[in-house]
């Protein structure tokens, strides 16, 4: 990236010498780095950019939700119960006779209405946005970390044998066997089983989704490393004496990150949908914490009296998942030269 030492040094003698030298070094390197090419391809894809912008907005909204709804006296209280103001439609003003000033919504009106306990849906959606975001990212973080480690070990130490005598198996056989086992289970049913056995908590849900969705990443990383390790730069690093860990972490994994980034983005979308499906079936994040899934699940009993209770979270889940999916698909096309051209 840097222009080299020659460019910054003031030219002592002839004025003609340094300028062409700088030009030569520029033409020697690749005209455009692969990362820059991918970025250009991504930028041209309008739907993907729209997805990225929507994802960024969702991030900002979720962070705002964290700031505005957390603490003992939050600015917007998602847990404030106002029984006189049950099931108010969006933009309805509070009942001035029954609700004291300090319990009225800060914005003067219930922007997105209230639920069956008179809680402000806008505040609950803000709180739930951050919960959904963290479920998505922690679950996928666990899955990707596991996938990188397991896939990396299988790719790099694949030929190492473990065990004794005729029972010895290669690491690669063990790992691909484990992946086969995990892929055989009906994932959603397995998640449901484990979540039902464990105590209902947001952490358990994140961990379970993470532990059951690492196989894709592990396969990508393994395949990528198998092809990368035959390349010259890896052999050069080996010759110089790089350790196995350094080789995996500094040389192999960073080069395999493209597909991992794609599966991360798509995985967040999947995790948000899974959490809301679990909530819908009654196995989700327990109350009083709000997630979009359990706002939707609780609201479905009032679908005729208060359709906004399901319409708002349902639409938001759709939009956010769609944004992550379009963003991820754009990344996939940008990182894959074969899909890029044309």
């Amino acid at each position, binding site marked *: 990236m840097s222009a080299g030492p020659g460019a910054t040094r003031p030219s002592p003698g002839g004025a003609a010498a340094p300028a062409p030298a700088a030009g030569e070094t520029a033409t020697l390197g690749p005209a455009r780095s692969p990362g820059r090419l991918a970025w250009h391809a991504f930028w041209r894809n309008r*739907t993907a950019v729209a997805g990225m912008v929507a994802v960024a907005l969702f991030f900002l909204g979720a962070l705002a939700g964290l700031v505005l709804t957390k603490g003992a006296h939050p600015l917007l209280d998602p847990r404030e119960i106002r029984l006189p103001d049950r099931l108010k439609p969006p933009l309805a003003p509070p009942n001035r006779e029954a609700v004291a000033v300090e319990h009225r919504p800060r914005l003067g009106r219930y922007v997105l209405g209230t639920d069956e306990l008179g809680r402000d849906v806008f505040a609950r959606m803000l709180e739930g946005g951050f919960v959904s975001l963290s479920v998505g990212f922690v679950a996928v973080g666990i899955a990707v970390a596991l996938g990188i480690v397991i896939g990396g070990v299988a790719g790099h130490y694949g030929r190492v044998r473990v065990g004794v005598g005729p029972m010895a198996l290669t690491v690669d056989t063990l790992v691909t*066997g*484990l992946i*086969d*086992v995990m*892929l*055989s*289970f*009906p*994932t*959603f*049913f*397995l998640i*449901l*089983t*484990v979540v*039902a*056995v*464990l*105590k209902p908590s947001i952490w358990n849900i994140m961990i379970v989704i993470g532990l059951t969705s690492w196989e894709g990443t592990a396969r990508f990383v393994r395949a990528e490393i198998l092809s990368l390790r035959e390349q010259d730069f890896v052999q050069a690093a080996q010759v110089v004496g790089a350790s196995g860990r350094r080789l995996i972490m500094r040389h192999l994994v960073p080069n395999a990150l493209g597909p991992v980034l794609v599966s991360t983005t798509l995985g967040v*979308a999947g995790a948000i*949908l899974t959490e*809301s*499906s679990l909530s*819908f*079936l009654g196995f989700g994040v327990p109350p009083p914490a709000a997630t979009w899934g359990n706002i*939707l699940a609780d609201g*479905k009993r009032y*679908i005729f009296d208060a359709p906004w209770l*399901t319409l708002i979270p*349902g639409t938001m*889940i*759709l939009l956010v*998942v*769609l944004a992550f*999916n*379009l963003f991820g*698909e754009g990344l996939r096309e940008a990182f894959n030269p*074969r*899909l890029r051209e*044309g």
Partner: protein
Amino acid sequence: MVPFILRTLWKKTWTLVLISVVSFAVIHLAPGQPSQIDPLNPRFTKQQLERYRAAFDLDRPLWVQYGLFYQKLFTGQLRSFKDNQPVLPKIGERTWNSLPLFAVETILVWCYAFPLGIAAAIRRNSLFDRLTTVLVFALISIPGFYVSYLAVIWVVEVFQVDVLGMRTFGSEGAGPWRAVMDRTWHLVLPSVLGATAGVAVLSRYVRSQMLEVLDSDYVRTARAKGLEEDSVLYRHALRNGLLPFVTMLGLLIPALVGGSVIFETIFAWPGIGRLGYEAILNRDYPVVIAINFLAAGLTLVGTLLSDLLYMIVDPRIRL
């Protein structure tokens, strides 16, 4: 070819053993005991609990329980915690109920996903391609449970007809023609809604697979020697492009259980997914373990079959 099959079978056997361990461990390694199915029930005295634990081998060490569980499963003696009925006939009956739903759904998915994906690949980057891309991702991103819920309410409100379950309540005495039509109608909504996400996902795979094939040398050669475009697309590209989808036949099987939990629960369809959901709610562990194990085992058989099928259709694999 024979050594390949033997090697595959040997590997799959070990995978099956691991699957049996995981299915069992998922329930038993969790904190809390399976015998605490109803800890709040005041009629569940300590003596009853002991008798109950003995009846279901819960007082034995874990590895003995594991052996006994699968011995009982395979000999058909395994009984449900909840109603003490044998597990296998129960699962069999519910799977039978799920089959029509699964079959219609699969047919819908394959009939719509292929034309959609192929058309998008041929007209790459056209308006059609971009519109289908957004549409497809919208279909993937829809929370299916919510849309199904809305659809049930809408159909019942507007058309005043029954949509839940496999047949209209109280229609037992109707003639055979009416019964068939009633059953068909009850299939429509759950299968269409269950298939939408499948159509979307599969059509993306078809599209990228077709793009890859259209980019290959033999398609360029076919074009260069002046073949008609239709012949290039359908004889040269499509036939090669379809090959990998043979392997997807095996991966359909987990969808029979996993994919149907939500839709069968919403539509009150007495199938295997709903049985699993009810068993989880009732903490009926023998049924839960058996469903997990059988689903994973069936998937394994499915992948074995698709490996063999792949070997038959693609001579390059035959080693």
